[in-house]
């Protein structure tokens, strides 16, 4: 407060209804002249939330109703989306509280951070007008941007259709549907909504920070549908919906079209290198919970790419990953993606899985065609590493004996599964 009012002589403790700080200026004739009123917007509008919880702001208003300053006290928004938060907030300075604060008309929102922008604008508008009416006794109207939000059903229907297309593509072995879902995911989730399943969501869920369902039904739909598909089929989201995965696959195929040399690594080193993403997941979760917000989790290349806000290091990182994707199939997904690592752990326990029938002769075609190297030949028998399987159906399509199919699975480790399948084959022989 002293930072905002350098000449202020007296700042009263928070008091009154609505709760506020009265700021007085020393004056030779009148020792207590009210200079301004400051308040925490959260005290007045606790119901207004951003993407990941409340955004607490300190607003200072002159007795005439002019916003003199606004400062951020606390927020949990995703850093990639709110790089320009200070510039956005500075737009409020100098405005009269009697005016309107409509996003897109009176205030320019933060690109690709609509929820955050709306929450700040509504919170400032509502709380300032309340202070103006009740504390400063000014004649101000109702909040301009406070119309009650209605549930947008389109953002429930579209993700449902997206997942239905992806699941149909997986179960129907339909490559066209898979690419259609990837394209739709890229356009809808990536370009239009900039909302993807990410480790930031995982951290926010862990910290019990949830957005408002009415204002962001897509967030809930994505989380629920991804979890359901993981528990039933496996990596449907990672394999057929993730916008960044689609970008990587297109880049990889472009590299092959241009006949650029593919980067190949040995099976042993690849298997070990895959643990890097689990390490990244652990570090990100540990750091986030230690700090108490999701800022440390905001390291995913796809968030930076689709949020389109990053530092120079952030952009260099994304470009580097995209270049590597040209030379190696899904480089990010395979070695680095922390949410992919988490999804893989759940996919390993899915109810239905791809299995090999007893007729499998161990020709190894599936091992050769698997683009992510999720199939390994052990004693001439194929073994699927389910946390890595993206359900692309390449193995199912190319199997000369057509012995791969989805089957209800009991939870067993990869080793146990291998031995059981071998036993079955031995008995069959």
């Amino acid at each position: 407060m002293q930072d905002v009012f350098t000449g202020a002589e007296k700042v009263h403790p928070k008091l009154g209804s609505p709760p506020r700080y009265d700021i007085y200026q020393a004056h030779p004739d009148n020792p207590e002249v009210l200079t301004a009123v400051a308040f925490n917007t959260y005290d007045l509008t606790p119901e207004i939330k951003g993407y990941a919880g409340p955004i607490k702001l300190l607003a200072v208003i002159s007795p005439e109703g002019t916003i003199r300053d606004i400062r951020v006290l606390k927020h949990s928004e995703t850093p990639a989306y709110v790089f320009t938060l200070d510039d956005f907030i500075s737009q409020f300075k100098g405005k009269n509280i009697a005016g309107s604060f409509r996003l897109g008309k009176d205030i320019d929102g933060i690109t690709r951070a609509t929820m955050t922008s709306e929450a700040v604008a509504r919170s400032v508008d509502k709380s300032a007008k309340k202070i103006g009416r009740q504390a400063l006794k000014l004649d101000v109207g109702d909040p301009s941007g406070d119309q009650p939000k209605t549930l947008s059903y389109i953002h429930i229907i579209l993700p449902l259709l997206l997942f239905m297309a992806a699941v149909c593509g997986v179960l129907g072995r339909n490559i066209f549907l898979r690419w259609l879902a990837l394209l739709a995911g890229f356009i809808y989730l990536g370009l239009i909504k900039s909302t993807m399943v990410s480790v930031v969501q995982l951290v926010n869920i862990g910290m019990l920070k949830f957005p408002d369902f009415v204002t962001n039904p897509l967030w809930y739909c994505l989380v629920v549908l991804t979890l359901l598909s993981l528990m039933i089929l496996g990596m449907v989201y990672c394999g057929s919906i993730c916008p960044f995965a689609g970008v990587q696959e297109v880049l990889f195929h472009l590299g092959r079209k241009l006949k650029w040399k593919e980067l190949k690594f040995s099976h042993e080193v690849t298997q070990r290198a895959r643990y890097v993403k689990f390490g990244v997941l652990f570090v990100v979760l540990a750091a986030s919970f230690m700090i108490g917000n999701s800022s440390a989790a905001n390291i995913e290349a796809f968030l930076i790419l689709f949020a389109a806000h990053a530092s120079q290091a952030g952009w260099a990182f994304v470009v580097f990953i995209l270049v590597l994707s040209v030379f190696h199939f899904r480089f990010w997904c395979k070695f680095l993606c922390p949410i992919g690592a988490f999804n893989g752990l759940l996919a390993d326990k899915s109810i239905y899985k791809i299995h090999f029938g007893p007729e499998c002769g161990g020709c190894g075609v599936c091992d050769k065609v698997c683009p992510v190297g999720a199939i390994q030949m052990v004693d001439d028998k194929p073994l699927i590493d389910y946390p890595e399987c993206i359900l692309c159906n390449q193995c199912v399509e190319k199997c000369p004996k057509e012995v791969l199919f989805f089957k209800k699975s009991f939870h067993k480790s990869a080793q146990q599964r291998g031995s059981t399948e071998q036993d079955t084959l031995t008995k069959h022989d």
Partner: protein
Amino acid sequence: MTNTTKSGDKLLIVLLVLIVLMMGQIMKENVASIRMAVLANGAKPKVDVDKVKAQLRQAGLKPYEAQYWGIPGAQPQKD
């Protein structure tokens, strides 16, 4: 294992180390950006130490009771 694969493996290790370092830098920047918003550029109460000291003295308090104001993290002495 072919020589190409061996060199590929070395390249993979180098790439992963490089990327992990970049991720560390981005994580550091993100954490700092939130802290900057909340601490450095946010509301920060400042205390005019000399003024408070003078007021304390005027109020008849003993000098040692005002000493801790100027020392970050210091606590008042106990009787």
